[in-house]
């Protein structure tokens, strides 16, 4: 193993190893047999994970100022002043991401070996999965926007391929298409954003773009760029209104859902916004939009998750909701919290998905929770790990989710105001409710299934356990100072976000009092230390304090923490009451009848699908057909046909004048002579 800084020259191997694995599985996988395929598939990711750990070790040893390593592989697209080299950037943010991505991927690969053991297309599956990891790592390691875009599109493609993996199912094919197209719609804006950045900055390089964006562009341009990028993120991270593809994406094999549609790919949007945070910071309005979208998403999808019956879809909506949390965090100026939540959510949600995969696998691909029940006794290991995941998700104190969610709630309260805070707290309690609804319905109660149960094998249990461990401990990298922790994650990430942590300017004016700003800066504490403080930021911070909260920092944070913990537990308790305690009274049914409108809105996912079908899909098809029939055929073709047809019919008529009779010929000649002579 290469020691010291030289190891960074091997950075390209982190994504490259999975690529080699993918190529192997693609080209030779068919002949190689499942064992070789799984060794190559998992091994390549494992190697990559190991390498990133090594890199992490060296990286962590570097002084903070040096924690930004660039590696230019070669010039990619060069045309005039447009230059996009293929370069990689390793900074704390990407370091965290590659470690997480390769780690979770590795676990899920291992899990997949068991899960997909009986599938005919084993090699193809691992080809896609490896390819996905390659693109995902490229995405997070990218040193400029275009390289990021490679990964961005690549993961979308792999997502498409994996959603449509069981191609014989119509729904899988449809879901794949939908996922690709919807995210592509977002990508369109992202691409525009990239081009706009190039035109403004003359470069796509992260380091040069983010060095001092405020000097190059004004607020309105920053808003444009930020919003364009954000739409891309919305598409990829399934935020309202582009979230509809993600529930459908559950057609993919469950490990894929865990990896792509929960832990990694969908968080790329969060990563992107975090990456471009310097630009977002320039535009308060865009942050506001981010926050509102995130909040709405979190709330709407949580409501849908409340009533869904498909286990994977519940988890999918929950994923959307959690992503909403992350965006909210970004919007309220807590990118560190967002990334933190990203990590903890990755562990918890991967765990939940893998657990649900085990359940589904066990029950022969049954996904309706109403047809489960009492599983606790049959697959205990799954049950336990699943419960840990659920607890972590719900934000029960002590587990991973708690800390990250708490950081978000706090930032929301401080920067977003009480209204947003209230809404997000309600959402948090809904999280508890619907996660535990699964547990109580599926694992408790009576057995409502009669199939031969496939208990999960070792390859599946092991990742579950490991992930459960992570879900428990993951939170401790970011224990807030209030609880005596050191919030190492925020600290680690701080070079990226500069003067990060709670300092948005949501809902408040940008004009601030310098005094207040300074005060805020002081209060922010160590986290912000060492980072240059721009005037604008100071002004933003000043806004926070204009709300006039006089409560002391610590007690406020503690109080909020308490409230959120209570709400989470309350949600769990409500679920317990509904599905276990109330027994035969069937509270949920009665409630659903009582609030029929709300219920149907929830079950139909707020009618987004229907709306899109009516507004986009149908008109598009109709318009296409209309153009074909009305323009291409009716106008253009008919003109051509008309010209040709009239020529040909003239070709029919003209020789008809050739009567074959001599007198007629002579008559025409004389007529011609008359005309000529008269003319002359």
């Amino acid at each position, binding site marked *: 193993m290469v020691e010291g800084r030289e190891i960074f020259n091997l950075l390209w191997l982190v994504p490259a190893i999975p690529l080699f694995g993918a190529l192997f599985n693609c080209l030779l996988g068919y002949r190689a047999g499942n064992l070789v395929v799984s060794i190559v598939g998992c091994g390549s990711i494992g190697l990559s994970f190991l390498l990133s750990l090594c890199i992490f070790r060296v990286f962590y040893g570097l002084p903070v100022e040096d924690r930004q390593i660039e590696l230019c592989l070669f010039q990619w697209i060069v045309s005039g002043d447009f230059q996009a080299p293929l370069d990689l950037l390793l900074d704390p943010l990407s370091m965290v991401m590659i470690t997480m991505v390769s780690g979770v991927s590795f676990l899920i690969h291992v899990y997949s070996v068991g899960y997909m053991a009986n599938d005919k297309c084993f090699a193809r599956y691992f080809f896609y999965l490896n390819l996905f990891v390659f693109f995902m790592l490229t995405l997070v390691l990218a040193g400029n926007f275009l390289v990021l875009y490679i990964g961005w599109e690549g993961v979308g493609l792999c997502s498409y391929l994996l959603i449509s993996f069981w191609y014989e199912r119509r729904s899988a094919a449809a879901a794949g298409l939908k996922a690709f197209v919807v995210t592509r719609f977002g990508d369109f804006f992202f691409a525009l954003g990239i081009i706009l950045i190039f035109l403004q900055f003359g470069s796509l390089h992260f380091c040069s773009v983010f060095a001092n964006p405020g000097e190059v562009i004004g607020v309105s341009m920053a808003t444009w760029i930020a919003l364009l990028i954000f739409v891309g993120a919305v598409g990829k991270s399934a935020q309202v209104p582009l979230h509809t593809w993600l529930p459908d994406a559950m057609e993919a094999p469950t490990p894929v859902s865990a990896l792509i549609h929960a832990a990694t790919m969908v968080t790329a949007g969060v990563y992107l916004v975090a990456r471009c945070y310097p630009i977002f910071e320039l535009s308060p309005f865009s942050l506001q939009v981010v926050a509102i979208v995130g909040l709405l998403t979190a709330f709407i999808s949580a409501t849908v998750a409340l009533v869904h019956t498909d286990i994977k879809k519940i988890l999918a909506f929950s994923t959307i909701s959690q992503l909403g949390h992350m965006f909210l965090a970004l919007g309220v100026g807590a990118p560190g919290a967002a990334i933190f939540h990203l990590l903890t959510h990755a562990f918890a949600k991967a765990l939940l998905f893998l657990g649900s995969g085990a359940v589904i696998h066990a029950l022969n691909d049954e996904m309706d929770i109403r047809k489960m029940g009492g599983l606790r006794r049959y697959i205990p290991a799954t049950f336990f790990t699943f419960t840990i995941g659920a607890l972590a998700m719900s934000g029960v104190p002590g587990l991973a989710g708690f800390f990250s969610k708490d950081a978000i709630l706090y930032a929301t309260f401080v920067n977003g105001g009480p209204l947003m805070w209230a809404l997000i707290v309600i959402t948090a309690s809904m999280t508890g409710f619907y996660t535990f609804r699964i547990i109580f319905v599926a694992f408790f109660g009576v057995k409502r299934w009669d199939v031969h149960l496939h208990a999960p094998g070792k390859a599946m249990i092991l990742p579950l356990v490991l992930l459960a461990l992570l879900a428990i401990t993951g939170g401790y990298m970011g224990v807030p100072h209030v609880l005596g922790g050191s919030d190492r994650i925020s600290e680690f990430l701080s070079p990226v976000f500069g003067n990060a942590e709670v300092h948005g300017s949501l809902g408040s004016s940008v004009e601030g009092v310098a005094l207040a700003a300074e005060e805020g800066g002081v209060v922010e504490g160590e986290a912000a230390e060492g980072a240059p403080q721009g005037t604008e930021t100071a002004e933003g911070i000043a806004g926070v304090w204009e709300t006039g909260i006089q409560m002391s920092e610590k007690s406020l944070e503690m109080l909020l923490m308490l409230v959120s913990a209570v709400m989470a537990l309350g949600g769990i308790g409500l679920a317990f009451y509904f599905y276990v305690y109330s027994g035969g009274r069937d509270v949920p049914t009665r409630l659903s009848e009582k609030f029929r409108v709300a219920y149907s809105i929830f079950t139909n996912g707020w009618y987004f699908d229907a709306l899109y079908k009516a507004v986009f899909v149908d008109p598009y098809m109709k318009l296409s057909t209309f153009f074909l029939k009305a323009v291409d055929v009716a106008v253009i073709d008919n003109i051509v046909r008309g010209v040709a047809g009239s020529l040909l019919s003239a070709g029919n008529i003209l020789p008809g004048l050739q*009567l074959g*009779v001599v*007198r*007629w010929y*002579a*008559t025409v000649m*004389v*007529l011609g002579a*008359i005309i000529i002579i*008269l003319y002359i």
Partner: protein
Amino acid sequence: MEQILFYIAFTITVVSAASVVLQGRVMYSVLSLIVTLLGVAWIYAMLSAPFLAIVQVILYAGAIVVLLLFAVMMLKFDETVQRRLRPDLLGVIGALVALVFAGMFVSLVSCGCFEFASIPADYGSIKSIGSVLYTQYLIPLELASVLLLVAVVGAVMLAGRR
């Protein structure tokens, strides 16, 4: 005197020509044609072309018409179907076109004022013609003989026995 002679010749020629066109039976047409050709010969004579008048009578009215007469008599075709001018569409159009043409043509050709030139005494005599014909127009003369050869070859080739 000259006027009277001219108008008589004019009348004879035109009437007989009309008769060629309008006669129902081919034989009558041929006979009318003889009259026309003689009328033309008369006109030639009036125009100081005595040699041509003679040739016209001998060659045209003699040889050509005889050829036609032979043809008419040899080929026993049924005339009944085409004896009368049938007022079919083509005929009507043809007649109209021809009449328009005639009106236009006659009026156009005749307009402009001309005067006869004074001419030498031997104008149009055989000798004068011959001297021009055999000097200036030697090549056309030879060509005319070739033309006659063509006529012979054609007749033999087409109408002759195998």
